């Protein structure tokens, strides 16, 4: 059942997508096995989004996921996907060269005691958007945990890019400035490196904007 090459762009899907189910409380066994005490893999994705040897523009992103009662979600797992410092993705669909060794992907497990998680990475560059627009630098995030029936997509933007935020095509369609703020990290400290805090609120007064993409 192949779609003929001259099919119009509005051809409906032939099959339904496999439905989602919660990742449950033991997601670490499968996705961060070293956190669960499994040592059988030679390599696993972790909190390093960019090659640690790349010292340029290094940053840390840290945060906590909170539920509707304000309690930290201690069994959350967060995935991150971002462009390199030039705004290029290591993917054939982008096709532009990326910085050597740049993978762009990270996977962080919340601390089972505190719920805090972090990524070590570099600042991404701006990425082309729809209709000739330029998207402000951002990191795409995906959150799963027990009680989350379908993974939650969101984006982290950086507080220094206010001028680019004004023209960012995604931020532009969030009319309420308080909701828009939920996608902008806060710069936490200077010193050896820069840390951006990005707390995610699944529900409640500060509910993060989640995306249907």
């Amino acid at each position, binding site marked *: *059942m192949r779609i003929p090459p001259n*099919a*119009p*762009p*509005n051809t409906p*899907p*032939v*099959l339904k*997508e*496999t*439905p*989602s*189910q*919660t990742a449950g409380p*033991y997601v670490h*066994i*499968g996705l961060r*096995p070293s956190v*669960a005490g*499994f040592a*059988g893999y*030679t390599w696993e994705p972790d909190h390093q989004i960019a090659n640690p040897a790349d010292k340029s523009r290094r940053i840390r992103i840290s945060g906590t996921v909170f539920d*509707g009662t304000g309690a930290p*979600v201690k*069994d959350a797992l967060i*995935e991150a*996907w971002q*462009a390199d410092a*030039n*705004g290029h*993705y290591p*993917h054939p*669909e*982008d*096709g*532009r060269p990326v910085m050597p060794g740049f993978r762009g*992907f990270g996977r962080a497990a919340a601390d089972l005691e505190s719920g805090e998680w972090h990524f070590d990475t570099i600042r991404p*560059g701006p*990425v*082309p*958007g*729809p*209709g000739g*627009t*330029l*998207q402000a630098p951002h990191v*795409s995030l995906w959150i799963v945990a027990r*009680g*989350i*029936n*379908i*993974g939650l997509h969101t984006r982290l933007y950086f507080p220094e890019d206010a001028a680019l935020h004004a023209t960012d*095509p*995604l931020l532009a*369609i969030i009319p309420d400035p308080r909701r828009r703020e939920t996608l902008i990290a806060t710069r936490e400290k200077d010193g050896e490196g820069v840390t951006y805090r990005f707390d995610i609120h*699944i529900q409640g007064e500060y509910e993060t*904007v989640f*995306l*249907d*993409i």
Partner: protein
Amino acid sequence: MTDTRPGRLPASGHRPGRPGPFFARDRGHHPPALWPDYKTSVARSPRQPLLSFENTLSEITGPLFSLRDLGPQDNDLLSNFATEGQPIGERMLLHGQVLDQNARPVPGVLIEIWQANAAGRYRHVNDGYRAPLDPAFGGCGRTVTDSEGRYFFRSIKPGAYPWPNATDSWRPAHVHFSIFGSGFAQRLITQAYFEGDPLIDRCPIAGSIPDPAARNMLVARLDMENSVPFDMLAWRFDIVLRGRRSTCFENRPEGN
């Protein structure tokens, strides 16, 4: 300084001659975020509507994986944990094919699984079920689909287990599946159940999928054709990832 030139990409980020954006996710086919029968979802469900946003490079691209990233035993849960001894339980071949919504096989898909042992116990610090751990079973595996979108794991059939939800809630036997397509927007985690299990219809997590036909997509089928005589039964679990619309050229928005 940062090179912010869009390079040779068309302004939309979609390259001519390439497929278009992903089909919109049919949210009614997935479980709703809030499903009160599954009590943990009450405080862990967004209440504001999701923000729809057309696909850009950030959603169409995603991390790519290959078998070179993995070890040769990674898809063999019978042998990837202990150096000696074999796990207890019913040996199984768990396999299937990954298609997209256009019914095309999807090669290069990273599939990661995790599961309880035959007694229904997970090797996890937070699992306090009284059933025993199996010294020869870790409970995780991973593989990458071949050129026809096919994958397989060797494992043991997981046991059902009780969990704190209602008074006497049991999870049907299941294997957790994490699936990576080529785009971050395709990201999917689900669970595979086993044909004929009477606990499926009593499970509030399986039941969070409103449409019985959709729920049925999560039931692995007994597959005698691929069983290994005197060794293991085969279970077939096919997976459908979001597909992409056909190409829409920049200067010919009516289609190609």
